[in-house]
Each structure stands twice: as structure tokens, then as C-alpha cells.
């Protein structure tokens, strides 16, 4: 009887063994070993020859790495708010009962599934190259467009735009949240004379703050780890103006074989992400509304 009960209580562990093995081998082990390697001079073809703190010192003293960190912050601070606003705005519009709404929802979601494909690289270059689509359009209005891809002042904008354009996944989550807002609240507000904007800011936004919070945290994490955009379109150029820290980690590990340094940079990125996540979680008590028993 006891054996049966033991089995019943623990059979779940048996079922999660495949996941557990995957987690241990592909997540926890690399996670722990990268911490170890970050304190070594590990080179792919030479192995570990000594233990050192130099990697961490170098991260905060090497201009190239500091620049990559700065560009990563710029990229994240530009793209996260813009992407959230774009996703919420489109989701709000697509929540109305309009003709062909499913077609529009699909159309807006498609860029998200294209990800960092070669097709996107070709498309983006065709639009933003010196004699590309955008500059051709600008020329019609007599405007001499800049060198979007080759001028360090504009290249980051091109990469940011790609990320903002791919707002589909955040939009779908917002759309689900918007559907959960009780319609009687809007009816009551309409009776009280509130316009659409007032309803949006006084009813919609407060009620979906948990979803805004969720999207904010996930978007921060994704933006700081962004790799595909700069890798496929600019390869970090021109003059490192689009070299995000994740691209630098990749180059360090797989082009220059400096695994120790790459691991240290990955850990610095992890710590930065943890700090921002903690800030977001701490801040939620001031602006996120949970409609549970305690209200907030």
C-alpha cells in the first residue's frame, strides 16, 4: 500500500525525466560551466592554462566592449518602449469589430515569425542601401537620403526598426488581454460621457497592466540579448555602431575562440538583465493592477 502511494506521489518525476535531462545537460551545465570559464583564460584550441579575473577587468577597460555595452543599452532603451507602444496600439485597433480583422491580425503577426532570416536581410538591405527603396522614395520629394547602412549615425536606427517591426508576438498577448477587459466597464464609461481616449487610458491600460508588465520584462530580456538583426544585416558595422554585446560574445567565442572572455561577457550581460528585471519587479507595486482579492 505504501509502495503504491509512493509511486502515485512520485510518478510525476518519471514523466518529467526527459525535460529534466535536457535542462541539466543543455541549460544548467552550460550555465555553471560558463561561470567557471569566465574566470579562466580558456581558448578553444589551447584549453584552460590559468585562472584569472582579467576577463572582467578587460570588459570594463576595453573600449570596444564598453562601446558594445553602450550600443546595447541604446538599442534596448529605444526598441522596448517603441515595440510595446506599437504592439498595444495595433492590438487595440484590431480589437474592434472591423471587416477582415483576422487577415490584419495575421498580416501584423507575420514579421514576428520571419525572425532573423536571410530573406529579412535581403529585404532590409534592399530598402536601406544607398540607392534603395527608401532613398528612392525620398528623392521623389527632393530629399537626399542618408547612407542608412554605412553611416554610423543611422545604422543603429535600421536595426532598431527591424525589432520594432517584429511586434507581432507582443501584439497577440496584448490582444488576448484586451479581450479580457469587461465590456460593461466601457458601456458605463460611455454613459458617463467618456471618449475613446479617456476609456483607453482610464479603463484599458490599468486593467491590462499585468500584461504590460509581462511584455516589458520579456522585451527587456530579448532586447538585451538581440543577435539576429545586427548579425544578418550589418554584421556589427559600420565601425562597430551596431555591435551589440551578444554579437561581440559570439565573435569572441566562435571567431576569435576566446571562450573565457566570451563567458565573462555573457555573465555581465546576465547580471545587467537581472538588475533590470529586479527593478521591473520592484516597480510593479506602484503601477501594476492585479484584480485579485487584495486588489494590487
Amino acid at each position, binding site marked *: 500500500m505504501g509502495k503504491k502511494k509512493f509511486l502515485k506521489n512520485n510518478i510525476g518525476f518519471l514523466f518529467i525525466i526527459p525535460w529534466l535531462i535536457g535542462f541539466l545537460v543543455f541549460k544548467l551545465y552550460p550555465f555553471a560551466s560558463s561561470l567557471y570559464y569566465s574566470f579562466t583564460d580558456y581558448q578553444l584550441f589551447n584549453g584552460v592554462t590559468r585562472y584569472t579575473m582579467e576577463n572582467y577587468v578587460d570588459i570594463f577597460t576595453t573600449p570596444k566592449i564598453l562601446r558594445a555595452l553602450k550600443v546595447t543599452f541604446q538599442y534596448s532603451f529605444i526598441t522596448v518602449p517603441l515595440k510595446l507602444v506599437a504592439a498595444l496600439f495595433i492590438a487595440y485597433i484590431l480589437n474592434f469589430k472591423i471587416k477582415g480583422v483576422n487577415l490584419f491580425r495575421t498580416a501584423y503577426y507575420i514579421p514576428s515569425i520571419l525572425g532573423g532570416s536571410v530573406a529579412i536581410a535581403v529585404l532590409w*538591405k534592399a530598402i536601406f542601401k544607398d540607392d534603395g527603396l527608401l532613398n528612392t522614395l525620398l528623392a521623389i520629394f527632393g530629399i537626399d537620403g542618408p*547612407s*542608412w547602412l554605412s553611416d*554610423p549615425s543611422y545604422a543603429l536606427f535600421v536595426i532598431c526598426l527591424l525589432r520594432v517591426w517584429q511586434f507581432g508576438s507582443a501584439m497577440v498577448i496584448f490582444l488576448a488581454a484586451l479581450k479580457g477587459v469587461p465590456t460593461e466597464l466601457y458601456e458605463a464609461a460611455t454613459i458617463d460621457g467618456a471618449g475613446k481616449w479617456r476609456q483607453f487610458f482610464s479603463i484599458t491600460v490599468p486593467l491590462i497592466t499585468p500584461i504590460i508588465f509581462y511584455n516589458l520584462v520579456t522585451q527587456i530580456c530579448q532586447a538585451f540579448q538581440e543577435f539576429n538583426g545586427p548579425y544578418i544585416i550589418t554584421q556589427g*558595422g*559600420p*565601425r562597430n555602431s551596431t*555591435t551589440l554585446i551578444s554579437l561581440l560574445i559570439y565573435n569572441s567565442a566562435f*571567431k*576569435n575562440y576566446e571562450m573565457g572572455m566570451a563567458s565573462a561577457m555573457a555573465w555581465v550581460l546576465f547580471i545587467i538583465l537581472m538588475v533590470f528585471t529586479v527593478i521591473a519587479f520592484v516597480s510593479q507595486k506602484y503601477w501594476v493592477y492585479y484584480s485579485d482579492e487584495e486588489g494590487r
Partner: protein
Amino acid sequence: MKKVRKIVALSVAAVMAVGTTACGGQAPAEQQPVNQPAEQAPAETGAADAQTPSAEPDTAAASTENDGSYEACTLSFSWWGGESRHTATLDAVKAFEEKYPGIKVESTYGAWSGWEDSMATMFATSTAPDVNQINWNWLDSYSADGSAFLDLNQVSDVLDLSQYSQEALGQCTVAGELQAVPVSMTGRIFYWNKSTFDKAGIDVPKTLEDLKAAGETFRSQLGDDYYPIALGEYDRMILMVYYLESVYGKPWVADDALQYTAEEIQEGLAFIQSLEDAHVTPSIQTITGDGAESLDKNPKWMNGTYAGIFEWDSSASKFEAALEEGQEFVVGTYFTDMGSHQGGYSKVSLAFAISESCAHPKEAAMLLNFLLNEDEGTTIMASERGIPLSAAALANCEAKDLLNATVAEANGKVLDWVTFPLDFKFEAATLKNSDGVYYDVMAGLSYGDYDMAEAASILIDGIEEELNK
């Protein structure tokens, strides 16, 4: 109700179990070695196995044709290249499999972009394919101690090394071991789009002065967008070395030491910058703004707006094929007025190596010999990897008129001219990759981020750091 649920659950479990067995029990036929797996069949018994009748019809057919001189096995084979190289190599592999039944070759191939990143990881973890097309400097980068690649002298009874000069084999000998067999030699040379020069009313450049004068002629006759030559960052680096060697008559690196002073390198950098200033070559910003992945895919090269390149002789056909119809592509000559010495270098363009971890070195060597030396293989491979260094392959290709005439002409000019050696470290990843020192220096100079002294200092520091590793 509970019973019904149990029955349904058990049935589903049974179906899944059967499904799992069905999936895992047998690999698809094309992934199966034709005969015994290598690990279980050492050379001697493998031959015996090959003669043992089998229930499998294809195995039986193969066994009757295997004369027992080799072991039935599966080899993995990797290379990078363009479509025509892929097609030729796959055809050659197929011919090899037909000639040696029982040996199956699994091919992995792709474009160069990103190729080295994945291969480096495989070499570091001993998971690389059995036979690999490698870049010459990989011998130093991945196998300086001989740990990644097999010493091919061990299989010289199968792989005919007598077809290669000692000098060529010497270039692939590292740590006292012949770690690869060189396929061809290559060097950089000028190529011109004669049609654009004709349009500008001038001949293609034969001297440095001609080239410098062409810049202004192009601007005045054809417009600001037209340039006599397009030079990317790495092209500029190689051209600078060619220039300095022509002027000073000493190799770039010798005995693990850079042979040029900061002042001399500044002179070289000034030469490169002077080409940009004189409208001979577009700025790096202009080339980047074209949005092309590489020069052969740049519409301005295709339509003749950029009328020249400084490229590997083995790349000639790629650039020629990219040109739009009606453009005439010609091989240039080295500039005799560059200096009093014959600058420039040639190097092994690429090589084939067998991984140290290969379980079937003899069969892998048979594959290499077929591709590099045997008439059947070299007829198919022709000059897809440059003009063959193998005497047998060259004789066969010449007899059958299989060599690309442009590649052959360029290769002949390169080998007749260049006199300087190249150090392995010149192509080290930290120097020549797109985030490496060469790109930083040449782009920094072009963008105006560095002055000559600063650029020379960064270049010297980067090179010395690599040489001291």
C-alpha cells in the same frame, strides 16, 4: 468508467511504445553503412565481411564488387564553395561510390559565410567530418601540434603524394607532419572590366600611374559613381603588403616577426588612402552603402560601375560570371612601377585533410586520391578549386581541355610574378575577420577615425599580439 479509461490509456501507451520501437529500430536506408559499421569491423575482418553473402539485396550486390582491398564503411566529407563546386564535388563523390561499392560518403557543404565558425568548434571537439576541405591557415590555427589532422604520410601507400612537389607539400607540413594535401596555389591579381575602360576611352591599367590617372578620367568621363577598382578592407590590406614588398623587397613577416617599421607601414597606409583620395577606389562607406554581401554580388560590379578588383586568381570565374551581358572581363598584369621588387605572395588556396579522429583513414585517403589524382575524379573536379597542383590532375585536365581559361591565365601570371612567402598568421582570425584588426584599421582610416600614425600603431600591435601567441 475507470476500466475504460485504463484500457484507453494502456492502448495509447502500447501504440506509443510500438511507434517508438519502429522509429528507433532502423535508420533510413541512406544513412546506413552498406556493410558492417566501422567500429565493429577492423580492416581485416571488414574485408571478410564484405565478401559474406547477406540477406540485404543491395549489400549483396555491393559485396560481390568489393575486391576486399578496402573496408566497407561510411565516410563524412565537408567542403564550402559555390553551386558549381557543390555540383562537381557531389558528382565526383557519386563516381567514387560507384567505383568503390561499400564505401558510402555523407557530404556536408555550404557557403563560406559562417563556415569557419562551425568547423572550428568541430575541430576543437573532435567531431569534424572524416575528410575536410580546409583553409591553409587552419593547419596553424587548429592543429599547430598535429592534434586535429592525420599525418598523411601514414596513408601514402593509398594517397599518391608523388604527384606534388616537395615545396607544395612543405607548405602543409606543420609540427613535422603532413597534415593536408594542397589542392592549388593562389595569389591576388588585378582583373578589369574592359568594357567600362573602353567607355571611359582608356586602356586597362598596366602601371600604377595608369591606375591613378584612371581615377580622374573615370570621374570626368563617366561620373562620380564610376571607379577603376573597388577595394574592400581585406583587399586593401593585401594590396598594401604587395606595395610595401615591391618597394622594400622584404617579406611582411619572417621568423615570427613583423619586418616593417611603423614609418614604413604608415607609407603603405598612405598609399592606400591616396587611391581613395584620387577617386581610384570608392570609400569603405560607399561600398558598405551598396548593401551587397560581397563584391561579386554588388550590382555596381555587375553593371561595370566598379571596373576592377584585386582578387584571388581562383575567384576569377565567380567574378566573371557575375558580370552583366556585354561586359568584357580581362586578367590584369602586375605593376612594374610599384617598386623595384616583385611584391605579392602566393599561398595554398585550400587543402584537403583527414581528421585525426577518422576511423577509416585508408578509405578516406582513397577518396582523396580519387578526387585529386585519379583521372575519373579530376575530370569531374577540373579547376573547381583552382588549377590543380597534382601533376596527374593537371595533365589530365590539360589533355581534356577542362581548365577554365581565365583562371589558368591568372594563375600563370601569379605564379610567374610573386616571390614572397606568406606567414600562416597573416590570415589569423583576430586579424582578417570582419571584426579583426585589418578591417578596423582600413575602415578606420577610410572613415577618418584614425590618422596614419594611429592606424599603423593599431595594426602593429594587433599583428605582434598574434605573432606572440
